[in-house]
């Protein structure tokens, strides 16, 4: 036990020393104006003390250095046993204010915590990118700076201050309000906890590894509807059975969370040993399916592509609320049924990440010609340089 403890202590010291040489991410201690003045005073008084061998000056120097040490100790005590947790309530929508909550707990028994601030950052990223910057050793300087500038430009940041004392054992909740500017994946991070406590000599920032990755749905847009061009009820043989909760049973499927218990087919479940639910044909046939194509050849202008995403998201949401959205698909993906809110959210999540698809190889058709042959299919096409129109069965239904 003693060997382990000694080894632990040795490693602790090694870690502490190494952290001084190579501080961890966002770990910064910068002197403030007061700190610079204090350091300058210490240097001046120290020089005068050595020059004159005056013990009065040595006393003043000792006191200044002791104050600096006290400042460090109090700062450490202030942050000690302080716990925090990030609270984010999705969904996040582009252009709409959202609050990132931070739950604080002072775990100390006797000492309150004062004067902290928390630095947040929200950085867009693409799936598959590393959460932390890779080494820049191999990168060329100009590329590194350009990349950093780009990331900096896209990132949003802010800080929230703990305005009151956090008593021992006390809890507090802080909120950082920001507005995601565009759809996509957003990495929300608590970059660090800063403190000027106690005397404002040093600006101490302790880095944290706390981050959450959340999708930002496209911003809602306003659009025009065209009457008489909505989905129509198919007649005769063209009527297709689709999943619903009315009419005759058309199939059995696996139970999914959220399904009504009334739909469980107990006999079949007992036979197969897994929960199966009945699937009925829908009676309401005035529904439609969204098919969104993201071909870069069609949607060459980035602004128009963003508008497409917003338009598709808005339409999907409106149709779902009206109970008229049957399914949705993006490009060659399968049509995902839209039975529950979770289905819609999943579609919106995919919209959040969607990017223009590169042009297909020569000889391969693009656009609606490759689409599934089903009726009441809602498709999108550019309208002019900026606008977008939505079509159902070739009829213009809505436009931005």
């Amino acid at each position, binding site marked *: 036990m003693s060997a382990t403890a000694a080894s632990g202590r040795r490693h602790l010291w090694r870690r502490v020393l190494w952290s001084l040489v190579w501080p961890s991410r966002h770990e910064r201690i910068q002197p403030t*104006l*007061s700190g610079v*003045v204090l350091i300058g*005073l210490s240097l001046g*008084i120290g020089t*005068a003390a*050595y*020059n*004159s*061998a*005056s*013990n*009065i*000056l*040595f*006393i*003043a*120097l*000792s*006191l200044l*250095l*002791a*104050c600096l*040490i*006290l400042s460090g100790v*109090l700062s450490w005590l202030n942050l000690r046993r302080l716990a925090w947790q990030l609270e984010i309530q999705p969904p996040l929508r582009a252009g709409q204010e959202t609050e990132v909550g931070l739950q604080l707990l002072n775990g100390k028994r*006797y*000492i309150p915590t*004062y*004067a*902290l*601030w928390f630095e947040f950052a929200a950085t867009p990223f693409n799936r598959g990118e590393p959460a932390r910057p890779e080494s820049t050793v191999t990168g060329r300087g100009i590329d590194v700076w350009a990349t950093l500038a780009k990331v900096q430009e896209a990132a949003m940041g802010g*800080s929230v*201050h*703990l*305005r*009151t*004392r956090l*008593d*021992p*054992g*006390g*809890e507090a909740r802080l909120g950082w309000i920001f507005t995601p500017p565009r759809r996509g994946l957003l990495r929300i991070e608590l970059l660090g906890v800063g403190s*000027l*406590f*106690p*005397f*404002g*000599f040093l600006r101490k920032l302790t880095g944290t590894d706390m981050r959450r990755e959340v999708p930002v749905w496209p911003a809602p847009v306003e659009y025009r509807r065209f009457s008489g061009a909505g989905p129509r009820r198919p007649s005769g043989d063209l009527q297709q059975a689709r999943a619903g909760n009315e009419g005759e049973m058309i199939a059995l499927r696996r139970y999914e969370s959220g399904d009504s218990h009334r739909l469980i087919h107990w006999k079949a479940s007992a036979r197969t040993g897994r929960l199966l639910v009945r699937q009925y044909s829908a009676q309401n046939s005035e529904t439609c399916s969204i098919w969104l194509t993201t071909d870069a050849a069609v949607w060459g202008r980035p602004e128009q592509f963003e508008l497409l995403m917003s338009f598709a998201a808005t339409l999907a949401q409106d149709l779902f609320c009206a109970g008229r959205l049957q399914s949705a698909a993006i490009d060659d993906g399968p049509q995902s049924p839209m039975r529950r809110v979770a289905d819609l959210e999943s579609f919106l999540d995919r919209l959040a990440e969607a990017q223009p698809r590169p042009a297909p190889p020569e000889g391969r058709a693009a656009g609606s010609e490759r689409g599934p042959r089903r009726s009441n299919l809602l498709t999108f096409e550019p309208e002019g340089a900026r606008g977008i129109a939505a079509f159902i069965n070739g009829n213009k239904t809505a436009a931005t």
Partner: protein
Amino acid sequence: METRRPRLSPDELQLLRWLLGGVVMLLAIATVFYLDIDSDLLAGIAAAGVLVALARPALPARVPVWGHRLAFPAIVLFFAGDLWLTGQLLPSIVRLDLLLLLYRGVSHRARRDDLQIVVLGLFLIVVAGVLTVSLLFAAQILVFTACALGLLLVVTIAASSEGGQAPKLAVRGVVPLWAAHADWGRLFRRLREISDWRIVLAGGGLFFGVIAVSGLLFLMIPRFQLENSLFLERFVTKKAMTGFNDSIKFGDITEITQDDGIAFDVDVSDPAQAPSRPYWRMIVLDQYHNGGFTLSPGMKSRDVFGREHTEANLRTGSDGTRGAPTWTFYLESGVSRYLPILGRFDVLRFREAQNFRYSFDLLLVALRDEPATMTAYRVEGMAPDSNQLSDPTFARRWRNRAVPGGLSLQLKLELSAADRAAVAGVTAGVAPAAGTDAGAFAQAASALLRSQHAYSLSPHIPAGLGDPLVRWMSSREPGHCELFAGALFLMARSAGFPARVVTGFKGGTWNAYSGNYTIRNSDAHAWVEIWDEQRGAWLRADPLEAAAGRNTSADKADALAGMTDRSWSARINSIRVFWYRRIVNFDQQSQVDTLRAIKNATDNSGKWLRSAIAGSAARIKGWFLGPWDGARIARMAGAAAAAAGVAWILVAGRWRIAALGRGRRRDPVRREAGRWLTRLDGPPALVTDLQRLRYGAAPTWPRPADVFRRARQAARSGRRRPSASRSTS
């Protein structure tokens, strides 16, 4: 569970910031009053301005905008004019500092202004400390540090309470809200409300921690001497007391004796060798003219004093006295630029390089400038006390006195013929009996003077023609030491003995607490040195001292015991001596000594601990190896059972107390509510609230302060009601 301790509002924090800033400024301004740089009036104005603004925080808003605009140029102009007119850099900078503090004190401050007053205040305190080396500095810088740290802490918390925004500079002419509603009484009540013993204890502990750490740093900071010394005191001139210049008039020494302040302290490495009535020589005066003694130009010449040295050590070339103790002098500023010395010495060491001149013949060490601070120096190889001072140079000159030229023979009497005759007349009664023995002559002349004149600090010199000293000699009027010394000087020269007057201090007290001499200005004295040809030395002749006979060690011990001071002032002075010994005089050697002492103490403690543990282990082992019989086993079992019982009671009792504390009784709010419930029969709503405070869960409590206020009101109305009913009946 979150506690319900109250918090200061942002406005209250701002008011506290204003208060602490004012205190910091006042502390800094107070140092100027004992700096002796003719800035008392300005310091008084600054202190008054800060005090008024402190009492009425809304007043600074009335300073017109043009006042703020003109303030800085006016201050700069004042500084430039001050420097030009006085030509003294440091006093001008101190006055500039005062003006800046005054301006900051009478205007609403932003955060950087608070920092500025801390820096300005620190400058004043450090300058005062360096220039005075006073013990007061230690107290003052500690209080200043506490207040300045408190101010910076409040500034940080206030900025945080405003969302990290530092307090911006107030709009000129507009009273900030916190200042408009300033109520010091309310602030102090709120401070009392929020103060918690744990916070106070932690604050006190941290402050003492700072002192301890700074003390440790003071000991550990590596010391090395740069020989390019920066003397801050060069920028300040200070006048010495007139009595210890190389030119004095009758009454100068007596005037010094009216002052009871401390002139210097002396540490002796071997107190057993401390003399009982030391004569601390400072200046030799060989010329008398019309009531004034001076050091003659010939004696001031380079032939006697040699060139000026700039060194930290003075080696005289004397062999020194074998086994002589080391003497450390702490000479206060304003006493003299001549250093007090007992006799011939080997080495004199200053703490830092000094500009000085040394005369071996006169045994004088004269600094070039009047020391503005306490001057510490150590003298090694100095005879404890001797009533004779060998002077081979003068002996040679005296033997060759027939040869003209060379140094003065110190026989000259600058008196008129009538005065010379009068002196000769007085001397005639002594000289024939003494013959050529200088010692005998000095004793006889002193006895004669003592028989004719009483000692008095208020002498009377008869009116008339001629030299005043001769008139006094011829009378039977009382006189002080200068008159006695002057008379003996004239008599000796008249009788043909070379003589000179020496001024300095005589005696002093022995501080029983710090074990050192303390010499006060009231010990100032003048005496005479007469050349003794037979011994080839100058003999000390003090006409006010009876014939020396106390030479035995017993007499010496008695005399030392008689001068021992055990008063309260000695106690306080011992702290000052400690300050000088351990702090002001701390140098590289002291650092090494201290570290060695710490190492020895640690080694000794370790050895003691090891031996104690080994001893305890041996005792325990011996106890176990002792014979075990039934009675012993029974005794042991009984003791173990008793210990277990006591432990169980303690643990169980503690657990119960802790459980009670967790629940009810430790909480002051619950306790107070319980007290009100037992003595109050108030309205049901109040009782319900009190019961909720007493027994309910803390989150459901009503505001305790309100409930207790209502309870107090109910109790008062309950007391009034019976008396009212009695009066109506």
